[in-house]
């Protein structure tokens, strides 16, 4: 009888690590709300961490290792929910995330929100987008050789360096679902911190004179035909070269096609509007709820936090150096910072480049050029995820 009125204070005090997790959740809420850093993701993730770490609530029921309790076959689901053996978030996790449904549909929405015209106008962007995946492979190797991670887990740690959310989630569910919580949290947090991580690296590897290199702000006007052919061509090329990238690239390019046909505006507005918003807060809150203290406080988590910085740094440097290398052959020099925007984190790194370009030379307006590399980086990360799946699945 008194059990009905049992409060959760005792449980909470008995597990001080839960309190640390609550502080982490609070920090994410603060960064999202007060500092406006990726609020659309950090606010749901922060609140999800609360849901995971206040005991006895039952929104998400965990196994002893801190993983979501498995969901029974659908005919027994109602009974399990009624008995409190499972919570709402268990169901959302099982049907939305483990099935890869939510990250893939989010990618459809992102495609509908993405304007590839800066990439089409400067196809060289693809080189930067590709080279900026360097961090993915470098950290993949380091993580694997460290002995802390299996080869599958190492791939998921590496892909953080592509700084693109949905491919990271997609790959991790497929290869290392146990690490989904920490990897997604670290990936989205670092994306939010790109404006802090990238500038020192860019400054280290470029001179002020290079950063001041002026580029005409406008990129070439791109025709409707090019815009329509782009997603179709990229999809076919990716499907033939890296078949395992089909789910990600297919959704991304389908969303983009809806945007550019000129006759499917209603569909693309919905895909990039209410549709993706619903999926985004579902993803955020579920990811937050994947981080009970027992799972989070492990050497692996700390290693992920450290390795991810290396991944971002190597990818940024790779893009920069590729752009400097390209300048050796180009008559009209490009601003090497454009390469750093190949680390997608759309649109964070493009913003960083834009801002640093203006600081070095007030006439500079590099946004469109940086966006080109940015979008190319997103495509490249999806392809890399497909490569890993092909190798490891």
């Amino acid at each position, binding site marked *: 009888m008194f059990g009905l009125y049992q409060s959760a204070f005792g449980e909470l005090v008995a597990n001080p690590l839960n309190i640390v997790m609550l502080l982490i959740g609070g920090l994410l809420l603060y960064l999202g709300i007060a500092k406006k850093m990726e609020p659309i993701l950090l606010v749901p993730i922060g609140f999800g961490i609360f849901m995971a770490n206040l005991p006895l609530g039952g929104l998400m029921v965990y196994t002893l290792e801190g993983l979501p309790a498995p969901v029974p076959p659908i005919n027994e689901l109602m009974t399990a929910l009624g008995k409190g053996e499972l919570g709402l978030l268990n169901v959302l996790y099982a049907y939305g995330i483990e099935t890869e449904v939510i990250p893939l549909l989010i990618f459809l929405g992102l495609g509908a929100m993405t304007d590839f015209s800066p990439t089409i106008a400067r196809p060289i962007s693809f080189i930067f987008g590709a080279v900026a995946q360097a961090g993915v492979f470098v950290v993949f190797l380091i993580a694997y050789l460290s002995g802390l991670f299996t080869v599958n887990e190492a791939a998921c740690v590496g892909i953080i360096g592509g700084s693109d959310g949905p491919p990271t989630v997609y790959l991790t569910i497929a290869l290392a679902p146990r690490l989904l919580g920490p990897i997604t949290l670290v990936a989205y947090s670092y994306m939010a911190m790109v404006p802090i991580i990238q500038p020192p690296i860019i400054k280290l590897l470029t001179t002020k004179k290079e950063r001041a290199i002026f580029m005409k*702000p*406008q990129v070439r006007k791109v025709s409707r035909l090019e815009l329509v052919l782009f997603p179709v061509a990229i999809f076919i090329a990716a499907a033939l070269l890296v078949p395992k990238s089909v789910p990600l690239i297919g959704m991304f390019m389908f969303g983009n096609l809806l945007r550019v046909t000129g006759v499917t505006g209603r569909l693309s507005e919905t895909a990039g509007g209410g549709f993706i918003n619903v999926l985004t807060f579902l993803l955020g809150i579920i990811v937050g709820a994947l981080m009970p203290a027992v799972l989070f406080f492990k050497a692996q988590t700390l290693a992920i936090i450290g390795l991810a910085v290396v991944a971002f740094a190597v990818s940024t440097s790779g893009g920069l150096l590729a752009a400097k290398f390209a300048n050796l052959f180009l008559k009209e020099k490009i601003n090497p910072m454009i390469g750093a925007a190949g680390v997608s984190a759309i649109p964070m790194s493009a*913003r960083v480049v834009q801002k640093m370009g*203006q600081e070095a030379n*007030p006439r500079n*307006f590099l946004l469109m050029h940086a966006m080109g590399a940015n979008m190319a980086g997103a495509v490249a990360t999806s392809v890399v995820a497909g490569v890993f799946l092909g190798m490891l699945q």
Partner: protein
Amino acid sequence: MAQEIVEFPIAGKVIEVNVNHGGAVEEGDVLCILESMKMENPILAPVSGTIAKLDISPGQMVESGDLVAIIEY
């Protein structure tokens, strides 16, 4: 006196105008904020001088190449 013509680098919507006709600006000062690609982008003064022409207001949609201001220096 030389004139510097400042144009909008890309299309978008003016959301804030930070200088006045006849006012003085330093190189690097923010002339206005252009919302484009869902981002707020400051348009900076390329030279120090006086605003000789300014014909934009908040809320206005602009194309790339439209005039932001003419600065005399």
